[in-house]
């Protein structure tokens, strides 16, 4: 158990924190008057009645960029070990890391070309081809099956 | 030159494939010609390979051509390959040669048949299978050919399947053959189990380490297979019924080639029989009894093809007799000459049947010799050959068998001699009833049937095979004359294959001549009997006892004591045991499975968390198990 000695301060901190929080909650429960109204029960108890729900959905583009960021960010993990010992790894290490960088870069080209990183108004990279068989009803199907509206 | 051996079975097979794809388009008679040419080409290739083999020194006349590994499972390795040696090439040569002639004959014989291309399709497939059987370098491939010829035989017996008799005859042949094949298969398992291989060379070289009981079992089981295929006691009745097939089929399959496969098998396994004399004795005795039995039945038959069928059974018995006593070269010699004269007789019978508007009863024929000279002369030659009259081929080959038989046991000789007399007699009877005497067919028993019948010799495509086979029957003995040691070509040619002979008796030249004289006397006795009894009469009930007409009641006994009781049992089984017991059990099991499934599928709820729970549950079970093993 001696090995846990170093954790003693942290342990005390945790105990203190929990004690303080429960103490405050308990005190307010005991001391404050309990007269709930519907206005008080609503969130944002600042007096202003909420008019609409907050936007739950971010634009898809937001997720997209976040995802791309995660990938590129994580690939950097492999750069660190190389950077630490790049001298002793020599030319072999350099070549390997360049190959690695290139293979990360190629999908990047794909992303850029597909407009994944374009903010603002959509600029079409490819010209829209005329599709004679495409009607308004088929376009609706592209967006989602008709029974989706019910869900 | 040996390298082209693969073409021998492949050419007829190619013919089969071509006919299968476009037989209808080729039509009549092109399909027949194509089939004939394929077989003839195969014969030419055989001759080339034969010559190549002949040029090798006598000790080195064995060439194995491996194509590919056919099956490789565990320790079982079976190569698809051919064995070219004197025995297989002799067989291949006569199979392709006789087949080519009979193909040619069939073009004429089947002229008016609607299913002309189909007939040749089966015929070509048969030849391919037969050649595979003969040329195989291992037992499994031999078995493949064995089954192949069986299937073709089944198709061809039932070729006119709209006739009830034909289709039931086909079934009968199939069933009798199956019994033999079952024994054959067991023999294969035994051979593989004991020697670890199915390759001839390997098997034969491992026999030394196999116990004698196993060897006897192998020999007897393989012989049981041969009994089915070659129509010996007790599995012979199918061959008489097989005459329902077209006559060329009877000539090719049920006289010259397929039925001799059993004899070939016995000769091929001579190293096994050498170490299992008991099995060999069984073969000799069964062969001898069959020979006599077949000959007696043939004496009283009226259907010309039945006479020939029982004659074939009898002659095959002769061959087994020879093989059983170790006189393999005599067996092969008899097989060759028999192929010539029996094919000849069948084809002659075919022309007669054609001429008589498909009537086969010898009692309603007569005096055809002047109207059909070619047929009559060739049939006459066939009679003298099979009867064993001196100089004709049968004289030499049958003499060879009898000679060896006497050396082994005089009892066998007596049976053989009796059979020889009967053989000359019953075919004489057939010849005289068909070609001599009164024109009994004129006074038609069935009115309108024979109106305006003008019997005549067939067209050249049918005559040429008759003439060629007639010539071969007459002089075929030349390939193996015992009168001088330098003249027995066949014996010396085959001797490397039959190195392990059970028994060998050397007669001096004097002995040989003595036996030849006795044989000639026996043959003349048979001929004299035939002429005396049937030269001027067509009805002699005393010499056609009912017991022989009914073939010793053996068919009747089969029907009475085996077929009917087993049918009863089968019906009983299907209505009671199968319907209530087995069906009930199967349906009950199916019901059980399905209701289990119906409950189990509810587990598959479609909810991801349930699936994850399944995964986690499995994980817990695995860990729980692991903890029981942990130390």
């Amino acid at each position: 158990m001696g090995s846990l000695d170093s954790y003693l301060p942290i342990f005390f901190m945790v105990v203190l924190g929990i004690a303080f929080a429960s103490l405050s909650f308990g005190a307010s429960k005991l001391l404050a008057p309990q007269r709930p109204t519907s206005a008080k029960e609503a969130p944002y108890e600042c007096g202003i009645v909420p008019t609409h729900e907050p936007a739950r959905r971010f634009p898809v583009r937001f997720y997209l960029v976040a995802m791309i960021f995660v990938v590129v960010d994580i690939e950097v993990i492999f750069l660190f070990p190389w950077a630490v010992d790049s001298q002793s790894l020599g030319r072999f290490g350099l070549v390997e890391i360049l190959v690695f960088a290139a293979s990360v870069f190629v999908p990047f080209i794909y992303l850029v070309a597909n407009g994944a990183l374009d903010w603002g108004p959509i600029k079409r990279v490819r010209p829209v081809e005329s599709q004679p068989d495409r009607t308004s009803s088929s376009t609706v199907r592209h967006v989602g099956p008709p029974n989706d509206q019910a869900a | 030159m040996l390298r082209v051996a693969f073409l021998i079975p492949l050419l007829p097979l190619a013919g089969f494939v071509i006919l299968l794809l476009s037989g209808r388009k080729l039509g009549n008679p092109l399909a027949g010609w194509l089939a004939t040419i394929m077989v003839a080409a195969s014969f030419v290739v055989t001759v080339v390979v034969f010559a190549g083999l002949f040029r090798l020194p006598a000790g080195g006349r064995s060439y194995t051509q491996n194509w590919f590994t056919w099956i490789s499972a565990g320790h079982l390795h079976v190569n698809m390959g051919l064995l070219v040696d004197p025995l297989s090439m002799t067989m291949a040569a006569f199979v392709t040669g006789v087949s080519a002639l009979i193909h040619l004959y069939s073009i004429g014989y089947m002229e008016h048949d609607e299913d002309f291309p189909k007939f040749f399709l089966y015929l070509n497939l048969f030849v391919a299978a037969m050649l595979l059987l003969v040329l195989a370098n291992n037992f499994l491939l031999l078995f493949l050919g064995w089954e192949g010829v069986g299937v073709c035989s089944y198709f061809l017996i039932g070729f006119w399947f709209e006739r009830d008799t034909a289709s039931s005859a086909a079934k009968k042949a199939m069933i009798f053959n199956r019994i033999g094949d079952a024994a054959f298969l067991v023999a294969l398992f035994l051979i593989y189990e004991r020697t670890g291989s199915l390759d001839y060379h390997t098997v034969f070289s491992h026999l030394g380490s196999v116990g004698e009981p196993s060897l006897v079992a192998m020999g007897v089981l393989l012989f049981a297979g041969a009994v089915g295929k070659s129509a010996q006691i007790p599995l012979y009745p199918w061959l008489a019924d097989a005459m329902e097939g077209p006559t060329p089929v009877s000539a090719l399959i049920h006289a010259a080639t397929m039925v001799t496969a059993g004899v070939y098998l016995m000769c091929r396994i001579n190293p096994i029989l050498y170490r299992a004399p008991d099995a060999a004795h069984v073969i000799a005795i069964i062969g001898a009894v069959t020979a006599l039995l077949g000959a007696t039945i043939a004496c009283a038959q009226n259907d010309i093809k039945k006479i020939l069928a029982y004659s074939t059974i009898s002659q095959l018995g002769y061959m087994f007799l020879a093989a059983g006593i170790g006189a393999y070269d005599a067996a092969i010699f008899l097989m060759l000459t028999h192929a010539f004269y029996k094919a000849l007789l069948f084809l002659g019978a075919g022309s007669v049947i054609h001429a008589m508007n498909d009537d086969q009863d010898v009692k309603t024929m007569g005096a055809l010799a002047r109207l059909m000279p070619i047929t009559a002369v060739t049939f006459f030659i066939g009679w003298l050959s099979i009867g064993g009259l001196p100089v004709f081929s049968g004289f030499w080959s049958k003499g060879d068998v009898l000679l060896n038989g006497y050396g082994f046991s005089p009892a066998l000789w007596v049976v053989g001699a009796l059979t020889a007399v009967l053989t000359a007699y019953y075919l004489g009877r057939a010849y005289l009833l068909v070609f001599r005497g009164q024109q009994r067919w004129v006074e038609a028993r069935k009115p309108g049937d024979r109106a305006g019948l003008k019997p005549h010799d067939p067209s050249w495509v049918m005559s040429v095979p008759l003439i060629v086979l007639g010539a071969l029957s007459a002089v075929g003995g030349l390939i193996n004359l015992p009168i001088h040691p330098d003249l027995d070509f066949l014996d010396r040619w085959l001797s490397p294959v039959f190195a392990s002979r059970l028994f060998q008796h050397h007669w001096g030249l004097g002995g040989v001549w003595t036996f030849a004289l006795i044989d000639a006397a026996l043959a003349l006795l048979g001929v004299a009997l035939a002429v005396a009894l049937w030269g001027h009469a067509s009805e002699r009930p005393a010499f056609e006892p009912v017991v022989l007409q009914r073939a010793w009641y053996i068919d009747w006994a089969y029907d009475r004591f085996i077929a009917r009781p087993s049918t009863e049992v089968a019906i009983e089984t299907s209505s009671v045991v199968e319907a209530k017991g087995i069906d009930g059990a199967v349906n009950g099991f199916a019901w059980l499975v399905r209701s289990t499934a119906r409950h189990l599928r509810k587990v598959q709820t479609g909810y991801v968390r349930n699936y994850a729970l399944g995964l986690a549950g499995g994980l817990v079970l695995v860990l729980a198990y692991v903890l029981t093993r942990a130390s």
Partner: protein
Amino acid sequence: MSVSATWYLTLAAVLFTIGAVGLLVRRNVLVMFMCVELMLNAANLTFVTFARRLNDIAGQTAVFFVLVVAAAEVVVGLGIIVSIYRRRPGATADDLHGLKG
């Protein structure tokens, strides 16, 4: 002044179990996915602990690979989740049960 490796391993096992249980009880696909990440990181902790105890660097390098794979999974997972749920606002994993039996 050092904590015994057993405690780290126990912590990792506890984290792993929390992740597994969380995946079983939560309905939100994103949260389920976060639970998987928790399990992966428990494995990472185990790797590092063992590497330390065995004085072997291989375990530490393994963490790199696990991290990267986890990131790739995140990206693909998010992609799939977004593409499915953009058409079904407020959906949970339980709403997907069209395929069953």
